[in-house]
């Protein structure tokens, strides 16, 4: 029982309440102090808890209180759980989060929605921490949807532009599609595990018990575990922007840039990966689901990288890069390398936050110009930003010894190991895809750097004079994150390089190699070396090609662009594979048209028109008929009377005769 855990979540939430309720009256300074101090405090608490874990304590637990509590039937408590995995996530969230909060002070200065912005950001932090700390899936779902809400609010932060609101809405709705699968996944869990507690869902006995059960679908049978894993993974594809639900993330760049850094790069979008790591035993029990995850991850990585080639909006490039990197993480998950996935999650949080904040610094300096074609040559004006951005770029490209190098290498090796050492055919293909993607990543990132910072300036003159390095908190944040991006890789140095894979061990995700013999270990290390060399090679060539194309060797680029294949590919990339358009044509518009049609056809015409009003009309016109037969002529009345008597007597006599005959 550790109530302190609650404070990790509660502190940022407090910030939200204070700023949300009183922010308007407090003034910018107080707002910033409160908004930044509380996540920092939360970081401190997390750090303290983390150090207790390091000291050898078991996982910390807060029993909380009953939440959705049907005694004896369905008992879901509001309880928190703090173990290695949660600790790492908490530190990343509060750490990177705090830095981004600080950055925001500079970035959002003078915005009329200042306090609103910070209260949303605090709220986001709280929800994200709740997601991470949750002891059961349902509680995690609060955080899960809560971060989605904050994402929605922050994407549409500048609500006066319709496009921003539409992007926010799109994000929420697309996420909800995934959430439906998550919800149904939880139902299946409840039905078969009888609980949503993560400890239950990950306990080996339970999983073995449940994996014997199968479900029948119209299209065939599937094991329960696979069903759950796939459903939860679909949930993850929503949040973590994987095929087929990635379409919201590029649009989400409509929000303020620090938001993109925090929510749409470092933390929220990685919660899908976190979910997989959290439920590692469950996923591992289903090879089919793992295969699917690897396939989706690899394909997403490739697709997004390909689209990133032609994007001209600096944030869009980073957005597609994020999608691609998240694909990497899922690829790792699919390969069973959960520790690598988490590692990449952490390093990605560092360098992608850095990249976004760097781009933010550029955008800020350029007075909200995001088109890279109108930049160029900013290296001189923004030297510090340039350096840090470059560090980030190299880190993501996988240049040793920066953070991305270690993590990406681990992932690629996992694929290599599965595909070639364990000889799994499909894994070979996926490895190849991600291997190529590594090169592509290096290429489009260097393109981005080149277009923004290098070469000639395309900045409007009036603007250029005012472009200057934003100092203060912005610089501080860039500095901190640059260091983290540079050194983050050392958190989990693999054993063959003499490290201890400490992150993997700490979180319990690392597969121990201690049961291997010395020979096996040696051959493993050899292949690890091979894989590493390959990845460095591909990253290097990507970088070189990029520098060549966007540096001096422009002719290569233009000639490629002019070739018919190049044109076709370029169009395909620039149009983002028409995914948005296809979704629009297949789902969105038919649905709206259908709704309109149904409204008019069923509600207006059939129910109201024909049934309701028709019935009323029928009744009224029958009434009118009866009204009209009342002609007012006495002879007519007498005749009715007389005929009535005659007919009725005739009937009576008829009946009487029949009755008598019987």
């Amino acid at each position, binding site marked *: 029982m550790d109530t302190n855990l609650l404070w990790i979540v509660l502190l940022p939430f407090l910030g939200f309440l204070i700023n949300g309720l009183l922010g308007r009256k407090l003034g910018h300074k107080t707002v910033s102090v409160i908004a930044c101090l509380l996540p920092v405090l939360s970081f401190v608490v997390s750090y303290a808890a983390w150090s207790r874990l390091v000291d050898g304590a078991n996982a910390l637990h807060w029993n909380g209180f009953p939440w959705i509590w049907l005694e004896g039937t369905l008992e879901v408590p509001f309880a928190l759980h703090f173990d290695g995995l949660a600790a790492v996530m908490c530190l990343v969230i509060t750490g990177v989060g705090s830095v981004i909060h600080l950055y925001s002070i500079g970035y959002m200065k003078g915005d009329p929605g200042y306090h609103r912005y910070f209260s949303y950001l605090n709220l986001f932090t709280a929800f994200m921490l709740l997601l991470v700390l949750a002891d059961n899936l349902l509680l995690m779902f609060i955080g899960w949807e809560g971060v989605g809400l904050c994402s929605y609010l922050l994407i549409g932060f500048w609500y006066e532009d319709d496009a921003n609101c539409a992007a926010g809405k799109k994000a929420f709705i697309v996420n909800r599609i995934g959430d439906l699968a998550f919800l149904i996944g939880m139902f299946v869990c409840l039905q078969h595990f009888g609980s949503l507690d993560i400890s239950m869902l990950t306990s080996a006995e339970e999983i073995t018990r449940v994996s014997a059960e199968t479900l029948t679908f119209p299209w065939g049978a599937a094991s329960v575990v696979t069903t759950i894993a796939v459903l939860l993974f679909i949930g993850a594809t929503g949040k973590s922007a994987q095929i087929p639900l990635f379409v919201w993330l590029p649009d989400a760049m409509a929000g303020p840039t620090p938001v993109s850094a925090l929510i749409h790069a470092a933390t929220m979008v990685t919660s899908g990966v976190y979910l997989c790591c959290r439920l590692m035993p469950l996923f591992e029990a289903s090879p089919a689901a793992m295969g699917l995850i690897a396939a989706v991850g690899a394909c997403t990585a490739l697709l997004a990288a390909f689209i990133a080639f032609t994007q001209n909006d600096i944030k869009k490039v980073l957005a597609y890069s994020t999608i691609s990197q998240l694909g990497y993480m899922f690829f790792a998950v699919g390969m069973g390398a959960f520790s690598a996935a988490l590692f990449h999650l952490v390093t990605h949080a560092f360098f992608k936050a850095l990249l976004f904040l760097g781009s933010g610094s550029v955008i800020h300096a350029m007075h909200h110009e995001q088109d890279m074609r109108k930049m160029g040559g900013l290296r001189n004006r923004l030297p510090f930003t340039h350096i840090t951005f470059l560090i980030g770029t190299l880190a993501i490209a996988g240049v040793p010894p920066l953070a991305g190098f270690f993590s990406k290498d681990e992932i690629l090796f996992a694929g290599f190991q599965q595909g070639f050492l364990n000889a799994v055919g499909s894994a070979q293909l996926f490895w190849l895809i991600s291997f190529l993607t590594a090169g592509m990543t290096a290429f489009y990132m260097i393109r981005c750097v080149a277009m923004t910072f290098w070469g000639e300036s395309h900045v409007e003159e009036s603007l250029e004079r005012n472009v200057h390095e934003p100092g203060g908190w912005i610089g501080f944040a860039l500095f901190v994150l640059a260091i983290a991006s540079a050194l983050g890789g050392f958190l989990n140095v693999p054993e063959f390089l003499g490290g201890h894979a400490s992150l993997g061990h700490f979180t319990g995700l690392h597969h121990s190699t201690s049961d291997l013999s010395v020979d096996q270990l040696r051959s493993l290390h050899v292949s690890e070396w091979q894989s590493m060399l390959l990845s460095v090679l591909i990253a290097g060539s990507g970088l070189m090609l990029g520098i060549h194309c966007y540096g001096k060797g422009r002719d290569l680029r233009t000639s490629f662009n002019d070739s018919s294949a190049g044109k076709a590919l370029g169009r395909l990339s620039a149009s983002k594979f028409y995914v948005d358009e296809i979704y629009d044509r297949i789902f969105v518009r038919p649905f709206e048209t259908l709704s309109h049609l149904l409204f008019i056809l069923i509600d207006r015409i059939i129910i109201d028109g024909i049934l309701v009003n028709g019935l009323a009309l029928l009744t009224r016109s029958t009434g009118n008929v009866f009204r*009209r037969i*009342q*002609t*007012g*002529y*006495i*002879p007519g009345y*007498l005749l009715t009377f007389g005929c009535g008597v005659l007919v009725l007597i005739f009937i009576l006599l008829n009946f009487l005769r029949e009755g008598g005959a019987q």
Partner: protein
Amino acid sequence: MFSLPSILYLSALLFCIGTYGVLARRNILIVLMSLELMLNAVNIALVAFGRVHALGAPAGEHGGQIFTLMVLAVAAAEASIGLSLLLVIWRRWQSIDLRTLCRLNN
């Protein structure tokens, strides 16, 4: 002298004539006369029934006859009301055709 059925047939015939008169004629005066005819047709039946049943019944049971007397009185009152209404109608419409009275309808 006359058997019960034959008297009843006479009564029925008169009733039918009366009914026909009410239904078929348009002159209010004739309709009033037909109504009287209907009542009196029933009177014949009543008297006939009374006569038949009184034969076997204890003394003092002359319901049919008493009934007839009552009906005669009522018929007289009815005729007077009818005729006074006829006067009102005549004053207003200058006509004693039933078909003219049709302002109230629907």
